[in-house]
């Protein structure tokens, strides 16, 4: 019985069939045609898009936006000093309002009595407010567009006229800050 032997060339040519088959398979990967999907209904704009750059002290990244005089204590609120400031990055400057949610603490109010807060945006005095009782307060005032530059940080701040001074260590405490920033209306 004769013994058939493959030449190297024969073996090599047969080996070439395998990648050839792989290549042909690759070219054929076209799915069957699809039916049209469920038809969507357009979403009408229910409210205009508005920029909201309010720093909530409960936000885990709130510390990143503190400029000064806001204690980095964590939690959902922070003590301020006499002149707290924070920075907010603004992509627009029209229709902006300065928003602050704060609390005049009973513990300091009993020593200081009524306090007046002055609110600033980029160093411009926006308004003053006098608080003659302790408790939560909300401040909301429109900001002139030319006080804020688009694409840059704006500094929002406040200054309390009568901070409470700790008799133990001399630390000045202003008020309790919950939220501060600019919002487009």
């Amino acid at each position, binding site marked *: 019985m004769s013994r058939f032997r493959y030449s*190297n060339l024969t*073996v090599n040519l047969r080996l070439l069939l395998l990648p050839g088959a*792989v*290549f042909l398979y*690759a070219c054929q*990967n*076209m*799915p069957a*045609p*699809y*039916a*049209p*999907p*469920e*038809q*969507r*209904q*357009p*979403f*009408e*704009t*229910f*409210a*205009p*898009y*508005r*920029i*909201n*750059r309010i720093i909530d002290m409960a*936000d*885990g*990244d709130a510390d990143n936006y503190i400029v000064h005089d806001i204690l980095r204590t964590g939690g959902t609120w922070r003590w301020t000093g006499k002149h707290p400031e924070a920075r907010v*990055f603004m*992509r627009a400057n029209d229709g902006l309002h300065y928003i602050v949610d704060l609390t005049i603490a009973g513990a300091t109010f009993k020593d200081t009595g009524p306090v007046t807060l002055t609110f600033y945006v980029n160093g411009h005095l926006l308004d003053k407010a006098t608080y003659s009782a302790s408790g939560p307060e909300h401040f909301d005032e429109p900001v002139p567009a030319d006080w804020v530059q688009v694409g840059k940080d704006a500094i929002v701040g406040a200054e309390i006229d009568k901070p409470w001074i700790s008799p133990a260590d001399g630390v000045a405490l202003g008020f309790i800050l919950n939220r501060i920033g600019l919002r487009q209306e």
Partner: protein
Amino acid sequence: MILALAALLGAALTAAACYAAGAMLIDKLGLTLRRFERAPLAFTLGAACLHLAVFAILTVHLAYWPVLTALLLGAIGGALAKGSWKLRGEQGEPLSVNLKRICIPSFGIFILLYFFHAWAPEMSPDGSGYHLGNVVRELRAHGFERITTDMYATLSAGIEMLFVPAFAIGRHSAAALVHLAFLVALALAMFAYGRRLGMPWVGAAGAFLTFASPVVGIDGSSAYNDVGVAAVVFSAFYWLEIWDETRDSRALVPVGLMAGYAYATKYTAFVMVLFALGFVAWRARKVRPLITVALFSSAMIVPWMLKDWIVVQNPIAPFGNAIFRNPYFHPMFEKNYAEDLRSYGVTDKRTLPLEVTIRGEKTQGILGLTFLAAPLALLALRYRHGRRLLAAGLVLGITYFANIGTRFLIPPLPFLSLAMAMGIGGGFGIGPPILGALMVFHAVSSWPPEMRHYADHFVWGLNHILFEQALRIVPQDQYLRTERDYSAARLVEATVPAGERILGLRGVPYAYCNREILSTYQSALSQTLIDFINASIIEDYQPTVVESFKFQERSGSRFRVLQTATVHDANAQWSVHELRFFHNGIEIPRRPEWRIQAWTNPWEVQLAFDNSLATRWRTWETVKPGDFLDVDFGRDEVVDEARLDTSPDYYEIRIQVEAMDSNGKWVELARDPKAVLADHSKYSLRRAAIYEINARGIHYLLAGEDDFRADDIRDDPEAWGMTQVASGYGIKIYKLNGATK
């Protein structure tokens, strides 16, 4: 402390099992090795075998820790029972006292640094990202899952297969310690190679140049795989040298296994297969040895190709998507990804030698100051073995320019290091003093505080010995919390309910987060969903153009729009938000009987027929003549106009409308459309985009900082139809509000 001991145990058992499996195979083949080379070569050979065993266990979904532990103990027990465990073989020439005086402190101080870093809680970027992220997923599912939404899950993972049993016993640090075992094996193999050549100083110096290189140190003591790849390719080279010296055909078995394992550890190391085949062909000039190498290489390569072919229809995924077309990865992703890897922000490639040796911030790591003298390796050309080392290094370096990260120089580094040592110190009587001085210089200049004097400030590298962290004197969670990304991962897990998928505009360390995050570019699905978000914000992506093709009334059942232009911009894509057909100005309603198809990207054709302006079909590869959208109405319809809602992001596109005639040939009906601007200002693309994402079963979105999309969402999440549910550590998590339409 239990965590620390478990990590040691997991790593020790895995490393021992690798050695045991390799030693048994060496003995089974009847191969004779010298005593000093048996341990490293057995370790890497056993790693190759063990990786296949773990692959098989994952395939049959039996990856429970008792099974994996039994595998390790079985290998160790088998070697002990068969007597293979014992180091045996011819002792080499005794080492000189001077060599020991240099080597013991040099290697000793660095191994201390590396060991404690590897033993400490693992927090390397890619290690705690995909290298261990995939291991965690596999162990959670007790086997391979059908993952089509993560390109990293398709890469070959030959080293990570060994992380699986180590992790099952000792968690994250055990995996990093296994990788460190590869570094030790590599150094021992390089040293052994020098001894085999009768050049122990060359072996020691070459090994130390690689071992103490800063990028090798941080990589090799993290749960990465580059140092493992280097150990594998060097072992393949070593076995080739053994075969060439002995011409024992049995040595071709480990040659084939190790060359194939190189592919299994990292795609870019596939060149080792070519080197091995080329070397054997050159030296043997026979086919049979080649077939042996090819067959045993295939045993390592084919399982990975088959896995990808079955799961994502592409055996070399996530690459080659224009050849092996599939719905899971876009060719455009591949192109952009490859461009990123070729760039790393290094605009002037002439600065690369400095970047990878002494700067390192852009390419993420440095080889060390000593490697500025790398051209001295050319002096090794005067030796036969030097030429071989340089040839192997060159072949392995070929793929470097596909990814210019410094750590992608690690696989050719052992060859370069040995060639440098050979070139500088081989053959001269003064070789040992020069090489000793070189080792001292390299040790000093690579020691972290010294290295940081000349390297870029943010270079990826080790800092100091993490003694307290490794022993968990500093609690693991406390140490990991110093990394913001770890805390972000924990925040995701605490906020998002189990089983929910998250669309990520950025990622977190997946190895510490038991939630699936569809992240940025990692799959066609995530790219398409993020394109919905991008198109809501970027005006050029929005459907602001309506192209109207009017033609003489035509009755037919099949119509198509065909792209005919050859574009010059390789990034140019054709995108269609909606394709509609009209008769007398009245749209022909879409019916379920219609059949629609597209080329290219046929899988996403429905996005052009869903009546949503937030979604769009895109070619997702460079547009070319012949791309089309095709509609079969299922019956004859009278049509006199086709309209495309499209975006103005690319201008070179040229479209014509065609109908199929009764002979099955396409007949042109119209070109040169009338384009008008569309006013969609009263529609909310943002809400529509989120609706589409929600409709695909994804209810959470993860955003980072310093990203235009994250900014836009943060400023008015309500306008997007989302509610912020968590914030901190550089991320914000939003819940997509319930679908209302």
